[in-house]
Protein backbone atom coordinates (compact mmCIF):
# COMPACT_ATOMS: atom_id res chain seq x y z
CA UNK A 1 0.00 0.00 0.00
CA UNK A 2 2.89 2.30 0.70
CA UNK A 3 3.81 2.81 -2.97
CA UNK A 4 0.28 3.93 -3.75
CA UNK A 5 0.26 6.41 -0.87
CA UNK A 6 3.57 7.85 -1.91
CA UNK A 7 2.33 8.03 -5.46
CA UNK A 8 -0.85 9.82 -4.52
CA UNK A 9 1.00 12.26 -2.33
CA UNK A 10 3.40 13.16 -5.13
CA UNK A 11 1.05 13.20 -8.07
CA UNK A 12 -2.20 14.33 -6.49
CA UNK A 13 -1.21 16.33 -3.47
CA UNK A 14 1.88 17.73 -5.16
CA UNK A 15 -0.20 19.71 -7.63
CA UNK A 16 -2.54 20.80 -4.84
CA UNK A 17 0.42 22.37 -3.15
CA UNK A 18 1.15 24.02 -6.47
CA UNK A 19 -2.17 25.80 -6.17
CA UNK A 20 -0.47 28.45 -4.04
CA UNK A 21 0.72 30.03 -7.24
CA UNK A 22 -2.87 31.07 -7.80
CA UNK A 23 -2.24 33.64 -5.10
CA UNK A 24 1.20 34.59 -6.33
CA UNK A 25 2.80 36.09 -9.36
CA UNK A 26 4.60 32.94 -10.42
CA UNK A 27 7.90 33.34 -12.20
CA UNK A 28 9.64 30.07 -13.13
CA UNK A 29 12.99 31.55 -12.19
CA UNK A 30 11.89 32.39 -8.67
CA UNK A 31 10.10 29.10 -8.01
CA UNK A 32 7.04 28.47 -5.86
CA UNK A 33 8.54 30.16 -2.81
CA UNK A 34 10.36 33.07 -4.30
CA UNK A 35 7.46 34.43 -6.30
CA UNK A 36 5.62 37.43 -4.96
CA UNK A 37 2.26 37.15 -3.20
CA UNK A 38 -0.54 38.96 -4.96
CA UNK A 39 -3.52 37.76 -2.94
CA UNK A 40 -6.75 37.51 -4.87
CA UNK A 41 -5.54 39.62 -7.76
CA UNK A 42 -5.88 36.80 -10.31
CA UNK A 43 -9.42 36.03 -9.23
CA UNK A 44 -10.36 39.69 -9.52
CA UNK A 45 -8.84 39.77 -12.98
CA UNK A 46 -10.86 36.72 -14.06
CA UNK A 47 -14.17 38.06 -12.77
CA UNK A 48 -13.66 41.40 -14.45
CA UNK A 49 -12.46 39.82 -17.69
CA UNK A 50 -14.80 41.08 -20.44
CA UNK A 51 -15.52 37.56 -21.69
CA UNK A 52 -16.11 36.20 -18.19
CA UNK A 53 -19.88 36.02 -18.48
CA UNK A 54 -19.68 34.51 -21.90
CA UNK A 55 -17.41 31.76 -20.60
CA UNK A 56 -19.81 31.07 -17.75
CA UNK A 57 -22.76 31.13 -20.10
CA UNK A 58 -21.13 28.71 -22.57
CA UNK A 59 -20.07 26.38 -19.81
CA UNK A 60 -23.45 26.41 -18.12
CA UNK A 61 -25.48 26.05 -21.27
CA UNK A 62 -23.51 23.01 -22.38
CA UNK A 63 -23.61 21.35 -18.98
CA UNK A 64 -27.25 22.14 -18.26
CA UNK A 65 -28.10 20.81 -21.69
CA UNK A 66 -26.28 17.58 -20.81
CA UNK A 67 -28.01 17.45 -17.46
CA UNK A 68 -31.37 17.86 -19.18
CA UNK A 69 -30.71 14.71 -21.19
CA UNK A 70 -30.02 12.80 -17.99
CA UNK A 71 -33.34 10.87 -18.13
CA UNK A 72 -32.40 9.27 -21.48
CA UNK A 73 -30.41 6.50 -19.84
CA UNK A 74 -33.12 5.89 -17.25
CA UNK A 75 -35.82 5.60 -19.89
CA UNK A 76 -33.71 3.35 -22.06
CA UNK A 77 -32.96 1.11 -19.09
CA UNK A 78 -36.66 0.88 -18.17
CA UNK A 79 -37.53 -0.10 -21.72
CA UNK A 80 -34.67 -2.57 -22.12
CA UNK A 81 -35.89 -4.14 -18.91
CA UNK A 82 -39.26 -4.74 -20.55
CA UNK A 83 -37.87 -6.71 -23.48
CA UNK A 84 -39.21 -10.25 -23.20
CA UNK A 85 -36.93 -12.05 -25.62
CA UNK A 86 -33.64 -12.69 -23.82
CA UNK A 87 -31.54 -12.88 -26.94
CA UNK A 88 -32.88 -9.64 -28.32
CA UNK A 89 -32.31 -8.04 -24.95
CA UNK A 90 -28.69 -9.20 -24.86
CA UNK A 91 -28.13 -7.91 -28.37
CA UNK A 92 -29.56 -4.50 -27.55
CA UNK A 93 -27.36 -4.28 -24.48
CA UNK A 94 -24.23 -5.33 -26.28
CA UNK A 95 -24.72 -2.95 -29.17
CA UNK A 96 -25.63 0.06 -27.05
CA UNK A 97 -22.61 -0.43 -24.78
CA UNK A 98 -20.17 -0.66 -27.67
CA UNK A 99 -19.62 3.03 -28.57
CA UNK A 100 -18.45 3.64 -25.01
CA UNK A 101 -15.16 2.04 -25.96
CA UNK A 102 -14.34 4.34 -28.84
CA UNK A 103 -11.63 6.77 -27.87
CA UNK A 104 -12.41 10.46 -27.58
CA UNK A 105 -10.20 11.19 -30.56
CA UNK A 106 -11.87 8.61 -32.79
CA UNK A 107 -15.27 9.74 -31.61
CA UNK A 108 -14.57 13.40 -32.35
CA UNK A 109 -12.97 12.50 -35.65
CA UNK A 110 -16.09 10.62 -36.62
CA UNK A 111 -18.32 13.48 -35.52
CA UNK A 112 -16.22 16.01 -37.40
CA UNK A 113 -16.48 13.96 -40.56
CA UNK A 114 -20.18 13.20 -40.30
CA UNK A 115 -21.24 16.78 -39.71
CA UNK A 116 -18.69 18.18 -42.13
CA UNK A 117 -19.58 19.70 -45.47
CA UNK A 118 -19.00 16.38 -47.22
CA UNK A 119 -20.33 14.28 -44.38
CA UNK A 120 -23.65 12.58 -44.02
CA UNK A 121 -25.29 15.15 -41.76
CA UNK A 122 -23.76 17.97 -43.76
CA UNK A 123 -25.53 16.54 -46.80
CA UNK A 124 -28.74 16.11 -44.86
CA UNK A 125 -28.58 19.74 -43.80
CA UNK A 126 -28.01 20.64 -47.44
CA UNK A 127 -31.05 18.59 -48.41
CA UNK A 128 -33.32 20.71 -46.23
CA UNK A 129 -31.73 24.12 -46.65
CA UNK A 130 -30.31 23.84 -50.12
CA UNK A 131 -26.72 24.34 -49.08
CA UNK A 132 -24.25 21.88 -47.63
CA UNK A 133 -22.59 23.21 -44.52
CA UNK A 134 -19.99 22.19 -42.05
CA UNK A 135 -22.27 22.08 -39.02
CA UNK A 136 -19.37 22.54 -36.64
CA UNK A 137 -18.80 25.93 -38.23
CA UNK A 138 -22.23 27.10 -37.05
CA UNK A 139 -21.89 28.29 -33.45
CA UNK A 140 -25.46 27.64 -32.35
CA UNK A 141 -25.22 23.95 -33.23
CA UNK A 142 -22.17 23.33 -31.13
CA UNK A 143 -23.87 22.39 -27.88
CA UNK A 144 -26.30 20.05 -29.62
CA UNK A 145 -23.53 18.27 -31.47
CA UNK A 146 -21.58 17.97 -28.27
CA UNK A 147 -24.46 16.72 -26.13
CA UNK A 148 -26.05 14.31 -28.58
CA UNK A 149 -22.81 12.75 -29.73
CA UNK A 150 -22.07 12.18 -26.05
CA UNK A 151 -25.45 10.54 -25.59
CA UNK A 152 -24.83 8.36 -28.61
CA UNK A 153 -21.60 7.19 -27.09
CA UNK A 154 -22.59 6.73 -23.47
CA UNK A 155 -26.32 6.28 -23.08
CA UNK A 156 -26.08 2.51 -23.31
CA UNK A 157 -23.26 2.32 -20.84
CA UNK A 158 -25.25 4.50 -18.46
CA UNK A 159 -28.10 1.98 -18.42
CA UNK A 160 -26.01 -0.77 -16.80
CA UNK A 161 -26.33 0.64 -13.34
CA UNK A 162 -30.11 1.09 -13.65
CA UNK A 163 -30.54 -2.35 -15.16
CA UNK A 164 -28.76 -3.91 -12.23
CA UNK A 165 -31.02 -1.93 -9.90
CA UNK A 166 -34.06 -3.06 -11.89
CA UNK A 167 -32.99 -6.67 -11.58
CA UNK A 168 -33.42 -6.24 -7.86
CA UNK A 169 -37.07 -5.17 -8.10
CA UNK A 170 -39.17 -7.86 -6.49
CA UNK A 171 -41.15 -9.93 -8.95
CA UNK A 172 -43.92 -10.40 -6.38
CA UNK A 173 -44.49 -6.66 -6.31
CA UNK A 174 -44.82 -6.56 -10.08
CA UNK A 175 -47.11 -9.60 -10.16
CA UNK A 176 -49.42 -8.22 -7.51
CA UNK A 177 -49.64 -4.93 -9.36
CA UNK A 178 -50.51 -6.84 -12.52
CA UNK A 179 -53.25 -8.76 -10.72
CA UNK A 180 -54.67 -5.47 -9.49
CA UNK A 181 -55.06 -4.58 -13.15
CA UNK A 182 -52.12 -2.27 -13.67
CA UNK A 183 -50.99 -1.91 -17.26
CA UNK A 184 -47.36 -2.39 -18.24
CA UNK A 185 -46.81 1.34 -18.30
CA UNK A 186 -48.41 1.70 -14.91
CA UNK A 187 -46.16 -0.99 -13.50
CA UNK A 188 -43.15 0.90 -14.79
CA UNK A 189 -44.44 4.17 -13.40
CA UNK A 190 -45.58 2.99 -9.97
CA UNK A 191 -43.35 0.01 -9.24
CA UNK A 192 -40.11 0.12 -11.21
CA UNK A 193 -39.37 3.82 -11.05
CA UNK A 194 -39.86 4.17 -7.28
CA UNK A 195 -37.73 1.08 -6.73
CA UNK A 196 -34.74 2.43 -8.59
CA UNK A 197 -35.22 6.03 -7.47
CA UNK A 198 -32.31 5.95 -5.00
CA UNK A 199 -29.94 4.95 -7.79
CA UNK A 200 -31.33 7.65 -10.05
CA UNK A 201 -30.88 10.33 -7.41
CA UNK A 202 -27.33 9.33 -6.64
CA UNK A 203 -26.37 9.33 -10.30
CA UNK A 204 -27.99 12.71 -10.67
CA UNK A 205 -26.02 14.18 -7.77
CA UNK A 206 -22.81 12.86 -9.28
CA UNK A 207 -23.67 14.48 -12.60
CA UNK A 208 -24.44 17.78 -10.95
CA UNK A 209 -20.99 17.79 -9.42
CA UNK A 210 -19.38 18.04 -12.80
CA UNK A 211 -21.52 20.93 -13.91
CA UNK A 212 -18.60 23.23 -14.62
CA UNK A 213 -16.14 20.59 -15.74
CA UNK A 214 -17.78 19.75 -19.02
CA UNK A 215 -15.88 17.15 -21.00
CA UNK A 216 -12.83 19.18 -21.70
CA UNK A 217 -11.09 16.61 -23.86
CA UNK A 218 -14.01 16.40 -26.21
CA UNK A 219 -14.77 20.09 -26.46
CA UNK A 220 -11.13 20.72 -27.10
CA UNK A 221 -11.22 18.39 -30.09
CA UNK A 222 -14.49 19.67 -31.52
CA UNK A 223 -13.52 23.28 -31.12
CA UNK A 224 -12.48 25.35 -34.11
CA UNK A 225 -11.98 28.99 -34.92
CA UNK A 226 -15.52 29.29 -36.29
CA UNK A 227 -17.43 27.91 -33.31
CA UNK A 228 -15.20 29.48 -30.66
CA UNK A 229 -17.99 31.87 -29.78
CA UNK A 230 -20.07 29.13 -28.14
CA UNK A 231 -17.48 26.41 -27.60
CA UNK A 232 -15.01 28.24 -25.41
CA UNK A 233 -15.62 27.04 -21.86
CA UNK A 234 -13.78 27.62 -18.60
CA UNK A 235 -11.67 24.48 -18.94
CA UNK A 236 -10.46 25.20 -22.45
CA UNK A 237 -9.79 28.79 -21.44
CA UNK A 238 -7.45 27.65 -18.66
CA UNK A 239 -5.61 25.56 -21.21
CA UNK A 240 -5.38 28.37 -23.75
CA UNK A 241 -4.03 30.97 -21.38
CA UNK A 242 -2.09 28.64 -19.10
CA UNK A 243 -0.17 26.22 -21.22
CA UNK A 244 -0.43 28.01 -24.52
CA UNK A 245 -0.16 31.55 -23.20
CA UNK A 246 2.20 30.80 -20.33
CA UNK A 247 0.18 32.72 -17.71
CA UNK A 248 0.61 30.04 -15.10
CA UNK A 249 -0.72 31.83 -12.05
CA UNK A 250 -3.80 33.27 -13.68
CA UNK A 251 -4.73 29.93 -15.21
CA UNK A 252 -4.26 28.12 -11.91
CA UNK A 253 -6.56 30.62 -10.23
CA UNK A 254 -9.29 29.94 -12.78
CA UNK A 255 -8.82 26.21 -12.39
CA UNK A 256 -9.22 26.56 -8.65
CA UNK A 257 -12.33 28.68 -9.05
CA UNK A 258 -13.77 26.01 -11.31
CA UNK A 259 -12.99 23.21 -8.88
CA UNK A 260 -14.51 25.05 -5.92
CA UNK A 261 -17.73 25.76 -7.79
CA UNK A 262 -18.00 22.06 -8.67
CA UNK A 263 -17.60 21.03 -5.07
CA UNK A 264 -20.17 23.60 -4.01
CA UNK A 265 -22.61 22.29 -6.61
CA UNK A 266 -22.26 18.70 -5.51
CA UNK A 267 -22.73 19.69 -1.87
CA UNK A 268 -25.85 21.69 -2.70
CA UNK A 269 -27.30 18.92 -4.87
CA UNK A 270 -26.59 16.43 -2.13
CA UNK A 271 -28.29 18.60 0.45
CA UNK A 272 -31.38 19.16 -1.66
CA UNK A 273 -31.66 15.47 -2.50
CA UNK A 274 -31.34 14.59 1.17
CA UNK A 275 -33.99 17.02 2.19
CA UNK A 276 -36.55 15.74 -0.28
CA UNK A 277 -35.82 12.04 -0.36
CA UNK A 278 -33.46 11.23 2.47
CA UNK A 279 -30.94 9.89 -0.02
CA UNK A 280 -27.48 11.30 -0.50
CA UNK A 281 -23.89 10.36 -1.09
CA UNK A 282 -22.86 11.43 2.39
Amino acid sequence: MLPALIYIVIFNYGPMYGIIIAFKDYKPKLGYWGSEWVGLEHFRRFVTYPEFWKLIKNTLSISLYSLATFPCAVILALLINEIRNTRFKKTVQMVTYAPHFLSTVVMCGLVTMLVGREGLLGHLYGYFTGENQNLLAIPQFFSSIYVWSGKWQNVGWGTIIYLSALAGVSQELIDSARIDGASRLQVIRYVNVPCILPTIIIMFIMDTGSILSVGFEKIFLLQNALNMDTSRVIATYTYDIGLMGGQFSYSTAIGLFNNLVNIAMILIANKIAKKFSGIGIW
Partner: protein
Amino acid sequence: MKRKKKVSMFDVCNTIFMLLVLLIIVYPLYYAVIASFSEASAVASGKVIWKPIGFTLDSYKQVFSNEKIWIGYANTIYYTVCGTLFNLFLTIPTAYALSKKNLPYRNFIMTIFMITMYFGGGMVPNYLLVKNLGLLNTRTVLIILGGISVYNLIVTRTYFSTSISESLYEAADIDGAGEFQKFLSIAVPLAKPIIAVMVLYYAVGHWNSYFNALLYVSDKSLEPLQSVLRRILILNEDALNQALLTESLSADELLDAAKRSQLAYTMKYAVVFVASAPLLIAYPFVQKYFVKGVMIGAVKE
Protein backbone atom coordinates in the same frame (compact mmCIF):
# COMPACT_ATOMS: atom_id res chain seq x y z
CA MET B 1 -58.65 -11.07 -23.99
CA LYS B 2 -58.59 -7.32 -24.07
CA ARG B 3 -55.73 -7.18 -21.65
CA LYS B 4 -53.62 -9.56 -23.65
CA LYS B 5 -53.98 -7.39 -26.70
CA LYS B 6 -52.86 -4.33 -24.76
CA VAL B 7 -49.73 -6.12 -23.59
CA SER B 8 -48.68 -7.12 -27.06
CA MET B 9 -49.28 -3.58 -28.24
CA PHE B 10 -46.75 -2.41 -25.69
CA ASP B 11 -44.30 -5.08 -26.79
CA VAL B 12 -44.63 -4.11 -30.41
CA CYS B 13 -43.97 -0.45 -29.69
CA ASN B 14 -41.06 -1.31 -27.46
CA THR B 15 -39.49 -3.59 -30.04
CA ILE B 16 -39.84 -0.97 -32.73
CA PHE B 17 -38.30 1.61 -30.44
CA MET B 18 -35.39 -0.71 -29.64
CA LEU B 19 -34.79 -1.43 -33.31
CA LEU B 20 -34.69 2.31 -33.88
CA VAL B 21 -32.17 2.73 -31.07
CA LEU B 22 -30.04 -0.05 -32.53
CA LEU B 23 -30.16 1.60 -35.93
CA ILE B 24 -29.07 4.95 -34.52
CA ILE B 25 -26.20 3.39 -32.61
CA VAL B 26 -24.96 1.08 -35.33
CA TYR B 27 -25.44 3.22 -38.39
CA PRO B 28 -22.62 5.77 -37.88
CA LEU B 29 -20.18 2.91 -37.30
CA TYR B 30 -21.50 1.01 -40.28
CA TYR B 31 -21.28 4.16 -42.35
CA ALA B 32 -17.62 4.63 -41.40
CA VAL B 33 -16.90 1.09 -42.55
CA ILE B 34 -18.66 1.34 -45.92
CA ALA B 35 -17.21 4.79 -46.54
CA SER B 36 -13.72 3.45 -45.95
CA PHE B 37 -14.25 0.84 -48.68
CA SER B 38 -15.85 3.21 -51.17
CA GLU B 39 -14.65 5.33 -54.03
CA ALA B 40 -13.58 8.65 -52.56
CA SER B 41 -15.62 10.81 -54.91
CA ALA B 42 -18.80 8.86 -54.18
CA VAL B 43 -18.44 9.44 -50.46
CA ALA B 44 -17.77 13.14 -50.87
CA SER B 45 -20.87 13.64 -52.99
CA GLY B 46 -23.05 11.84 -50.47
CA LYS B 47 -24.00 8.85 -52.63
CA VAL B 48 -22.77 6.25 -50.20
CA ILE B 49 -25.65 5.44 -47.88
CA TRP B 50 -26.42 1.74 -47.58
CA LYS B 51 -23.50 -0.05 -49.21
CA PRO B 52 -20.01 0.73 -50.50
CA ILE B 53 -19.92 2.26 -53.97
CA GLY B 54 -17.02 1.35 -56.24
CA PHE B 55 -15.43 -1.06 -53.81
CA THR B 56 -11.78 -0.24 -53.32
CA LEU B 57 -9.01 -0.84 -50.83
CA ASP B 58 -7.16 2.36 -51.69
CA SER B 59 -7.76 4.04 -48.36
CA TYR B 60 -6.46 1.03 -46.49
CA LYS B 61 -3.36 0.99 -48.66
CA GLN B 62 -2.83 4.59 -47.62
CA VAL B 63 -3.28 3.78 -43.96
CA PHE B 64 -1.00 0.78 -44.00
CA SER B 65 1.73 2.64 -45.83
CA ASN B 66 1.62 5.46 -43.27
CA GLU B 67 4.46 4.65 -40.93
CA LYS B 68 3.44 7.26 -38.35
CA ILE B 69 0.38 5.16 -37.61
CA TRP B 70 2.51 2.11 -37.00
CA ILE B 71 4.91 3.96 -34.74
CA GLY B 72 1.88 5.20 -32.84
CA TYR B 73 0.47 1.72 -32.62
CA ALA B 74 3.72 0.33 -31.24
CA ASN B 75 4.02 3.16 -28.71
CA THR B 76 0.44 2.73 -27.56
CA ILE B 77 0.89 -0.99 -27.03
CA TYR B 78 4.01 -0.30 -25.01
CA TYR B 79 2.32 2.37 -22.87
CA THR B 80 -0.77 0.24 -22.38
CA VAL B 81 1.14 -2.84 -21.22
CA CYS B 82 3.58 -1.03 -18.93
CA GLY B 83 0.99 1.44 -17.69
CA THR B 84 -1.50 -1.27 -16.82
CA LEU B 85 1.12 -3.27 -14.94
CA PHE B 86 2.02 -0.17 -12.99
CA ASN B 87 -1.68 0.45 -12.23
CA LEU B 88 -2.10 -3.07 -10.93
CA PHE B 89 1.00 -2.80 -8.80
CA LEU B 90 -0.47 0.27 -7.13
CA THR B 91 -4.13 -0.71 -6.99
CA ILE B 92 -4.33 -4.35 -5.95
CA PRO B 93 -2.10 -4.39 -2.83
CA THR B 94 -3.58 -1.08 -1.68
CA ALA B 95 -7.12 -2.32 -2.10
CA TYR B 96 -6.19 -5.47 -0.18
CA ALA B 97 -4.69 -3.52 2.68
CA LEU B 98 -7.67 -1.16 2.85
CA SER B 99 -10.09 -4.08 2.94
CA LYS B 100 -8.57 -5.19 6.25
CA LYS B 101 -10.62 -3.92 9.15
CA ASN B 102 -7.65 -4.01 11.52
CA LEU B 103 -5.55 -1.65 9.40
CA PRO B 104 -4.51 1.30 11.56
CA TYR B 105 -5.83 4.71 10.40
CA ARG B 106 -7.91 2.95 7.78
CA ASN B 107 -10.55 5.64 7.48
CA PHE B 108 -8.02 8.41 7.49
CA ILE B 109 -6.08 6.81 4.64
CA MET B 110 -9.28 6.22 2.72
CA THR B 111 -10.16 9.89 3.13
CA ILE B 112 -6.80 10.89 1.72
CA PHE B 113 -7.59 8.88 -1.39
CA MET B 114 -11.18 10.04 -1.66
CA ILE B 115 -10.31 13.73 -1.55
CA THR B 116 -8.43 13.38 -4.80
CA MET B 117 -11.64 12.33 -6.50
CA TYR B 118 -13.18 15.72 -5.91
CA PHE B 119 -10.27 18.06 -5.66
CA GLY B 120 -7.10 18.37 -7.68
CA GLY B 121 -4.43 20.86 -8.50
CA GLY B 122 -5.56 21.63 -12.01
CA MET B 123 -3.78 21.68 -15.29
CA VAL B 124 -0.96 24.11 -14.70
CA PRO B 125 0.26 22.82 -11.32
CA ASN B 126 0.22 19.32 -12.78
CA TYR B 127 2.24 20.48 -15.71
CA LEU B 128 4.76 22.25 -13.49
CA LEU B 129 5.12 19.16 -11.34
CA VAL B 130 5.88 16.96 -14.33
CA LYS B 131 8.28 19.56 -15.59
CA ASN B 132 10.07 19.89 -12.26
CA LEU B 133 10.45 16.14 -12.02
CA GLY B 134 12.17 16.24 -15.39
CA LEU B 135 9.58 13.97 -16.95
CA LEU B 136 8.59 16.13 -19.92
CA ASN B 137 9.08 14.28 -23.19
CA THR B 138 9.77 10.90 -21.67
CA ARG B 139 7.99 7.61 -22.07
CA THR B 140 7.84 7.32 -18.29
CA VAL B 141 5.37 10.15 -17.89
CA LEU B 142 2.78 8.44 -20.09
CA ILE B 143 3.17 5.23 -18.14
CA ILE B 144 2.98 6.53 -14.61
CA LEU B 145 0.44 9.33 -14.88
CA GLY B 146 -3.01 8.25 -13.83
CA GLY B 147 -1.24 5.58 -11.78
CA ILE B 148 -4.18 4.91 -9.54
CA SER B 149 -7.84 5.54 -10.07
CA VAL B 150 -9.58 5.95 -6.76
CA TYR B 151 -12.82 4.72 -8.23
CA ASN B 152 -11.13 1.48 -9.29
CA LEU B 153 -9.48 1.26 -5.90
CA ILE B 154 -12.85 1.40 -4.18
CA VAL B 155 -14.31 -1.19 -6.52
CA THR B 156 -11.42 -3.57 -5.84
CA ARG B 157 -11.55 -2.96 -2.12
CA THR B 158 -15.26 -3.72 -2.08
CA TYR B 159 -14.58 -6.96 -3.88
CA PHE B 160 -11.90 -8.00 -1.42
CA SER B 161 -14.02 -7.26 1.60
CA THR B 162 -17.24 -8.82 0.34
CA SER B 163 -16.14 -11.83 -1.70
CA ILE B 164 -13.33 -13.34 0.29
CA SER B 165 -14.35 -14.89 3.54
CA GLU B 166 -12.56 -13.82 6.69
CA SER B 167 -12.27 -17.44 7.84
CA LEU B 168 -9.81 -18.21 5.06
CA TYR B 169 -7.40 -15.66 6.47
CA GLU B 170 -7.95 -16.97 9.96
CA ALA B 171 -7.09 -20.46 8.81
CA ALA B 172 -3.91 -19.09 7.23
CA ASP B 173 -3.08 -17.30 10.47
CA ILE B 174 -3.24 -20.59 12.30
CA ASP B 175 -0.90 -22.10 9.74
CA GLY B 176 1.49 -19.26 10.49
CA ALA B 177 1.26 -17.35 7.22
CA GLY B 178 2.51 -13.75 7.16
CA GLU B 179 0.63 -10.82 5.61
CA PHE B 180 2.52 -11.05 2.34
CA GLN B 181 1.93 -14.75 2.09
CA LYS B 182 -1.75 -14.30 2.77
CA PHE B 183 -1.96 -11.65 0.09
CA LEU B 184 -0.11 -13.65 -2.54
CA SER B 185 -1.45 -17.11 -1.89
CA ILE B 186 -5.04 -16.40 -0.79
CA ALA B 187 -6.21 -12.97 -1.85
CA VAL B 188 -4.68 -12.71 -5.31
CA PRO B 189 -5.81 -16.12 -6.62
CA LEU B 190 -9.33 -15.53 -5.33
CA ALA B 191 -9.42 -12.02 -6.75
CA LYS B 192 -8.77 -13.10 -10.32
CA PRO B 193 -12.15 -11.90 -11.58
CA ILE B 194 -11.69 -8.41 -10.20
CA ILE B 195 -8.10 -8.28 -11.42
CA ALA B 196 -9.40 -9.08 -14.91
CA VAL B 197 -11.87 -6.21 -14.59
CA MET B 198 -9.12 -3.85 -13.51
CA VAL B 199 -6.81 -4.92 -16.33
CA LEU B 200 -9.56 -4.13 -18.81
CA TYR B 201 -10.53 -0.80 -17.26
CA TYR B 202 -6.99 0.46 -17.02
CA ALA B 203 -5.92 -0.91 -20.39
CA VAL B 204 -8.81 0.75 -22.22
CA GLY B 205 -8.00 3.96 -20.40
CA HIS B 206 -4.40 3.87 -21.57
CA TRP B 207 -5.33 2.84 -25.07
CA ASN B 208 -7.76 5.72 -25.47
CA SER B 209 -5.96 8.50 -23.67
CA TYR B 210 -4.52 11.34 -25.70
CA PHE B 211 -4.50 14.30 -23.41
CA ASN B 212 -1.46 13.48 -21.32
CA ALA B 213 0.52 12.99 -24.48
CA LEU B 214 -0.70 16.34 -25.75
CA LEU B 215 0.39 18.10 -22.58
CA TYR B 216 3.63 16.39 -21.77
CA VAL B 217 5.13 14.89 -24.91
CA SER B 218 6.08 16.85 -27.98
CA ASP B 219 8.61 14.43 -29.43
CA LYS B 220 6.82 12.78 -32.34
CA SER B 221 8.61 9.46 -32.06
CA LEU B 222 7.10 9.02 -28.57
CA GLU B 223 3.55 9.80 -29.58
CA PRO B 224 0.84 7.25 -28.87
CA LEU B 225 -1.65 6.24 -31.51
CA GLN B 226 -4.32 8.66 -30.31
CA SER B 227 -2.04 11.64 -30.88
CA VAL B 228 -1.30 10.48 -34.39
CA LEU B 229 -5.01 10.04 -34.97
CA ARG B 230 -5.67 13.51 -33.69
CA ARG B 231 -3.27 14.91 -36.24
CA ILE B 232 -4.89 13.00 -39.04
CA LEU B 233 -8.56 13.26 -38.04
CA ILE B 234 -8.86 16.59 -36.32
CA LEU B 235 -6.00 18.71 -37.52
CA ASN B 236 -6.18 17.32 -41.06
CA GLU B 237 -2.48 16.87 -41.14
CA ASP B 238 -1.14 14.20 -43.35
CA ALA B 239 1.56 13.52 -45.80
CA LEU B 240 -0.72 13.91 -48.81
CA ASN B 241 -1.92 17.38 -47.97
CA GLN B 242 1.52 18.55 -47.13
CA ALA B 243 2.84 17.38 -50.45
CA LEU B 244 0.10 19.45 -52.09
CA LEU B 245 1.17 22.59 -50.36
CA THR B 246 4.85 22.38 -51.07
CA GLU B 247 5.10 21.24 -54.66
CA SER B 248 4.30 23.40 -57.64
CA LEU B 249 2.03 21.35 -59.84
CA SER B 250 1.31 20.87 -63.50
CA ALA B 251 -2.29 20.38 -64.68
CA ASP B 252 -2.01 16.61 -64.67
CA GLU B 253 -0.53 16.59 -61.26
CA LEU B 254 -3.25 18.92 -60.09
CA LEU B 255 -5.94 16.49 -61.14
CA ASP B 256 -4.05 13.76 -59.43
CA ALA B 257 -3.75 15.95 -56.36
CA ALA B 258 -7.49 16.58 -56.25
CA LYS B 259 -8.07 12.85 -56.34
CA ARG B 260 -5.60 12.35 -53.60
CA SER B 261 -7.16 14.93 -51.34
CA GLN B 262 -10.48 13.11 -51.70
CA LEU B 263 -8.68 9.93 -50.91
CA ALA B 264 -7.36 11.57 -47.77
CA TYR B 265 -10.99 11.95 -46.74
CA THR B 266 -11.98 8.29 -47.10
CA MET B 267 -8.66 7.41 -45.56
CA LYS B 268 -9.87 9.03 -42.36
CA TYR B 269 -12.73 6.57 -42.18
CA ALA B 270 -10.25 3.77 -42.70
CA VAL B 271 -8.14 5.19 -39.89
CA VAL B 272 -11.14 5.22 -37.57
CA PHE B 273 -11.74 1.60 -38.39
CA VAL B 274 -8.14 0.47 -38.04
CA ALA B 275 -7.71 2.29 -34.73
CA SER B 276 -10.90 1.02 -33.13
CA ALA B 277 -10.89 -2.50 -34.50
CA PRO B 278 -8.82 -4.14 -31.72
CA LEU B 279 -11.13 -2.90 -28.99
CA LEU B 280 -14.35 -3.53 -30.86
CA ILE B 281 -13.32 -7.04 -31.86
CA ALA B 282 -12.25 -7.97 -28.35
CA TYR B 283 -15.27 -6.25 -26.83
CA PRO B 284 -17.96 -8.95 -27.15
CA PHE B 285 -15.70 -11.46 -25.42
CA VAL B 286 -14.83 -9.29 -22.47
CA GLN B 287 -18.08 -7.37 -22.14
CA LYS B 288 -19.22 -9.29 -19.10
CA TYR B 289 -16.13 -8.23 -17.16
CA PHE B 290 -16.77 -4.58 -17.80
CA VAL B 291 -20.35 -4.89 -16.74
CA LYS B 292 -19.25 -6.71 -13.62
CA GLY B 293 -17.00 -3.78 -12.76
CA VAL B 294 -19.86 -1.34 -12.97
CA MET B 295 -22.04 -3.59 -10.83
CA ILE B 296 -19.47 -3.94 -8.06
CA GLY B 297 -19.03 -0.20 -8.15
CA ALA B 298 -22.77 0.22 -7.74
CA VAL B 299 -22.75 -1.86 -4.56
CA LYS B 300 -20.54 0.71 -2.92
CA GLU B 301 -22.64 3.63 -4.00
